[in-house]
C-alpha cells in the first residue's frame, strides 16, 4: 500500500468509533488521572490491512532462520555460559509480553481517543505475538541445546524461583493498580521506551557474539514492533500533560517506574551481558557503556528531558543515581555475584569467571578485581563437588547473605544504601531510599495530601527466603521447587558447566543445610539488636564482605 493510501485508509477507519448514548463502557480499571478529549494523532497510521501481511513476512523470516540454525548446527558454536542464562531470561520474558497485551484495555479505558485506541489494540496482538514467538524460541533451545534441564520446567521455574518473582513485577506492574501508572508510565513510557533498548537490542548483540543468532533474529523482530508501542505511549503522556491535575501523579509515577525498571532490568540484563558472555574483546561495549548510549543518551537526554518543556519535572536525580549505582557502586557486579551465590536455588548453571574474564572486567571497570576477583576465585574453588557446601553456606567465602528489598525484591546489595523501617507492622528492608518511598509513600491511597484511591498496592509473599524459612535445602529443591533432574537425584542448577555426572551436585550435597530468612531473623531481634545489626550490615561490602562486628 502506498503512503498516500495508508493515510487515507487510516483516516477512514477513524469513522468506526462512536459516542455511546445508551450506556458507557464499564469502568473496569480505575485511574486517578483525568483526560479530556483531545485530538491526538497516531503518527504511524496503523491499519490492520497492512499490518497482518507485514507481520507474516517478519514471521517467515524468523522461522526461516530457525530452520537454518538447526540445519547449520548452530548449537555446535553456542557458548554454554550464555545459553544457561537464557534459561532464566526466557522463562521471564514471555510473561511481561503477554502482560503488555493484557494492559492495553487499561489504557484504552482511560484515554478518550480513537486513534490511540486503534494503536493500542494492535499493540495487544503484537504482544501475543511476542509472548508466543519467545516461548517457541525457548522450545527450540530445549530441543537442540545440550542441556535441556531448566528449559523443560521453564514456566514453573519462573513461578516459584526468587529470580522469576523479581522479573514478574516487570509484567504484573503493567496490569495492576492505577491504569495509567501501570499501562502507560510503567509499561510504555519507561519499560518499552527506555529498557527494551538494552533488552532487545544490546542483549541480542551479545547473543550473536556467543554463537547464538536465533535470539537476535527473534528479538529484533520483536523490537521492530516497539516503535509503534512507543508512539502509543507518547501520545498518551502528551494527553495527560494537557491536564494540570495529572502533573503530580506523572512525576510520582516517573520516579517509581524509572527506579523499578532500573533496579530490575539492569540487574538481570546487566548480569546476562557482563557475566554470561565469553566475548572478552576489549573494544566490545560493556553493559555500562551500552547503558550510557541506549538509556542515558538515547532515552534520558533525547526523550525524557524534552518533556520538561511541558512543565514536567523529570527525575534527573534518579537517572544520575542509577548511573552512579552502575558505574561507581558496582550494581551489576553485586547482582551477578548474588545470583552465583544463590546458584543452589536456581534452574540454570552458572559458569565461574576466569583470568580472561578478570582482565576484561578490570579493563572495563578499573578496580573490579580488588572488589570481586577473590570471591570469583573462591567460587570456582567451591564449585567442585568435594565435600563442602554451596558457597552461600561456607564462611570462607566471606559473604554475608543479603537482606531483600521489600519493593524491587532484588537484595540490598549496595549495603550502605540499605534502608530499614517498620511499615505496615513489619520491619522491612529496602535497597534504596527510592524503593522505601515507593512502598511507604507512592503505593498508598493518599499522596502528598491528595486522595489516590486507584493507586495499587504491593502485595504477595515478597520475600522468597521467608517462604522457605527454616526448611532443609534438599527438601526445598526437591519438594517445593522441583529443580531436580530426571534421575531424581542430580540438581538442575550447578556452579559449573561440567556435565560429567560424577562432577554434578546432587541432593546429597545440599541435605542438612537449613535456609533462613534474614527478614524473619531481623523481626525476631530486639529493637537495639536490630539497629546494631543494620549498622553493621550497612558498613559491609563491597562484594558482600561483612563488616567487623
Amino acid at each position: 500500500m502506498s503512503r498516500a493510501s495508508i493515510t487515507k485508509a487510516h483516516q477512514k477507519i477513524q469513522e468506526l468509533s462512536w459516542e455511546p448514548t445508551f450506556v458507557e463502557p464499564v469502568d473496569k480499571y480505575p485511574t486517578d488521572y483525568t483526560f479530556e478529549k483531545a485530538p491526538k494523532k497516531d503518527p504511524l497510521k496503523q491499519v490492520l490491512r497492512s499490518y497482518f501481511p507485514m507481520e507474516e513476512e517478519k514471521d517467515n523470516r524468523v522461522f526461516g532462520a530457525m530452520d537454518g540454525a538447526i540445519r547449520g548446527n548452530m548449537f555446535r558454536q553456542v557458548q554454554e555460559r550464555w545459553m544457561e542464562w537464557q534459561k532464566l531470561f526466557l522463562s521471564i520474558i514471555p510473561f511481561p509480553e503477554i502482560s503488555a497485551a493484557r494492559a492495553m484495555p487499561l489504557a484504552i479505558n482511560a484515554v478518550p481517543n480513537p486513534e490511540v485506541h486503534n494503536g493500542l489494540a494492535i499493540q495487544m496482538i503484537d504482544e501475543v505475538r511476542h509472548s508466543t514467538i519467545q516461548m517457541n524460541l525457548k522450545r527450540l533451545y530445549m530441543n537442540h541445546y545440550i542441556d535441556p534441564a531448566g528449559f523443560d520446567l521453564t514456566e514453573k521455574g519462573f513461578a516459584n524461583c526468587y529470580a522469576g518473582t523479581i522479573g514478574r513485577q516487570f509484567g504484573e506492574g503493567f496490569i495492576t493498580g492505577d491504569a495509567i501508572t501501570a499501562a502507560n508510565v510503567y509499561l510504555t513510557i519507561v519499560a518499552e521506551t527506555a529498557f527494551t533498548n538494552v533488552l532487545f537490542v544490546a542483549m541480542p548483540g551479545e547473543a550473536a557474539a556467543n554463537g547464538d543468532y536465533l535470539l537476535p533474529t527473534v528479538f529484533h523482530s520483536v523490537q521492530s514492533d516497539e516503535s509503534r508501542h512507543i508512539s502509543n505511549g507518547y501520545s498518551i503522556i502528551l494527553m495527560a500533560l494537557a491536564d494540570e491535575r495529572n502533573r503530580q501523579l506523572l512525576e510520582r509515577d516517573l520516579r517509581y517506574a524509572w527506579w523499578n525498571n532500573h533496579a530490575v532490568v539492569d540487574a538481570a540484563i546487566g548480569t546476562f551481558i557482563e557475566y554470561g558472555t565469553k566475548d572478552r574483546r576489549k573494544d566490545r561495549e560493556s553493559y555500562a557503556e551500552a547503558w550510557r548510549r541506549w538509556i542515558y543518551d538515547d532515552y534520558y537526554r533525547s526523550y525524557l528531558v524534552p518533556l520538561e518543556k511541558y512543565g514536567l519535572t523529570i527525575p534527573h536525580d534518579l537517572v544520575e543515581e542509577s548511573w552512579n549505582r552502575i558505574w561507581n557502586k558496582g550494581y551489576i557486579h553485586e547482582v551477578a555475584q548474588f545470583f552465583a551465590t544463590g546458584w543452589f536455588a536456581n534452574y540454570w548453571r552458572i559458569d565461574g569467571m576466569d583470568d580472561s574474564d578478570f582482565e576484561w572486567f578490570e579493563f572495563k571497570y578499573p578496580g573490579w578485581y580488588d572488589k570481586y576477583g577473590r570471591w570469583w576465585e573462591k567460587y570456582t574453588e567451591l564449585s567442585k563437588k568435594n565435600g563442602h557446601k554451596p558457597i552461600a553456606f561456607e564462611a570462607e567465602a566471606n559473604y554475608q547473605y543479603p537482606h531483600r528489598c521489600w519493593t524491587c525484591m532484588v537484595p540490598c546489595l549496595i549495603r550502605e544504601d540499605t534502608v530499614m523501617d517498620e511499615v505496615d507492622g513489619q520491619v522491612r528492608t529496602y535497597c534504596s531510599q527510592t524503593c522505601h518511598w515507593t512502598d511507604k509513600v507512592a503505593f498508598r491511597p493518599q499522596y502528598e495530601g491528595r486522595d489516590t484511591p486507584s493507586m495499587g498496592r504491593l502485595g504477595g509473599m515478597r520475600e522468597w527466603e521467608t517462604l522457605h524459612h527454616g526448611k532443609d535445602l534438599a527438601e526445598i529443591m526437591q519438594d517445593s521447587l522441583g529443580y531436580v533432574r530426571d534421575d531424581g537425584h542430580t540438581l538442575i542448577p550447578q556452579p559449573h558447566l561440567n556435565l560429567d555426572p560424577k562432577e554434578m551436585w546432587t541432593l546429597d550435597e545440599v541435605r542438612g543445610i537449613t535456609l533462613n530468612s534474614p527478614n524473619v531473623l531481623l523481626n525476631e531481634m530486639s529493637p537495639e539488636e536490630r539497629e546494631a545489626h543494620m549498622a553493621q550490615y550497612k558498613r559491609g561490602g563491597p562484594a558482600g564482605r561483612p563488616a567487623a562486628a
Partner: protein
Amino acid sequence: MATEVKERSVPKPAFTDAEAGAKEFPSWQSRSYNYFTPRKRRATVYEDVTVDVQPDPARHLSQGWVYEFANGVGGYPQEWTALKSSNWHQFLDPNEEWEQTIYRNNANVVRQISQNIEHGRTAGVYAAFDPAWVKVLERHVFAWAHAEHGIGLHVYTPAQRDAPTNMINNAMAVGAVHKLRFAQDLILYNLALSEEIDGFDGSIHRQTWQEDPVWQPTREFVEQLTATRDWAEQWFATSVVFEPMLGELFRSGFVMQVAALHGDFVTPTIMGAGESDAAREQRGARVLFRMLTDDAEHGAANQAQLRQWLSTWNAAAENAARTLQPIWSQISEKVVRFEDSLERSKARQQALLADIGLEA
C-alpha cells in the same frame, strides 16, 4: 601500493559442541515442557507456547501476586466472573491460536479481500450494482462495521485482561483482532466504493448507526455488552447470543443471501470473512461453556447462571433482530424473508446451546 589492513574486531566463533546428544547425563533427553499435562500424548506447539505463561497461585506461583489493585485484589482473580470451574486450565482453544496461526490466517484474509475488491474494480461490477442495493449498502451494510468494531475494542479487548488462564485470554485477544480487522475490512471497502460508484455516500453509515431507528436496539445491545464487567458473560453474550441472533442474521441471513441478485458478488465474500471469524470464536465458546456446564462441582450453578444470562440477552437480541426487519424490505429482489432468516438464526443458536449443554 599495498595498504595495511587492520584486523577487524569481531567475535571469534568457537567450536563448543553444545548440541543435543553430545553428552549423556541426567536429563539430557528431557526435551518437553514438563510442568503441565498435554491433552494428547505429545504437547502441541499451541500448548507449549501458551500454557502457564500466565501463572496461577493454584498451580506453581508460590509467592503469590506481587501487585494488587487498591481493593487488595491482584493478578487474575477467579471472582471476575460469576461462573466457577474446578480447573480453569482445562480449557484449550480448539483453534490453537498462537503467533504463527494468527498472522497466517489474518494475512490470508486481508489479501483475499483486497483481491476480491480489486477484481470487482477491474470487472467494472460496482457501476452495475442495483441502485436500491447501493442505498442498503451505504447505510446498513456499513453501519454493521460499527457493531464489529465496538465488540472488538470494548468487549473482547477488555475481556482478554480478565480470565484466569492464558488459554482463555489469548482466545479472546484473537477474537478482538478478528472483530477489529473485519470492521476495518468493511470500512475500507466502503472507501473503495466511494471511489468507484458515483454519488455513493461513504459517510451515511455513521448517522444510520447512531440515529436510524432500525439500528438503535442493536447499538444498545452492543453498548450493553461493553458495559458488562463479567468477562465470561461478555464472551457468552457475544458468541452465543449476539453472533447467531444478530451477527449471522444480518451477515449471512441477509447480506450474503441477497447481494448477488443485485449485481454484487463482492460484498458476500467480505461478509463471509466475518462469518468465518465469528465461527472460530464460537468454537472456543462452545468448548469453554461446555466445560463449565459439565463441571462436576459447579456445573449446575453454572448452568443456572448461563440460563439467566441467556434469558436476559436473548430478549434484547430478539427485540433488536425484529427491529432490523425493515431492511429486508428495502431491496428490489426479495429472495429471503426476514422470518426465515430469523428462524435460521434461532435454529443455529439452539444447536449451539445444545453443544454447550443448555438445551431449551
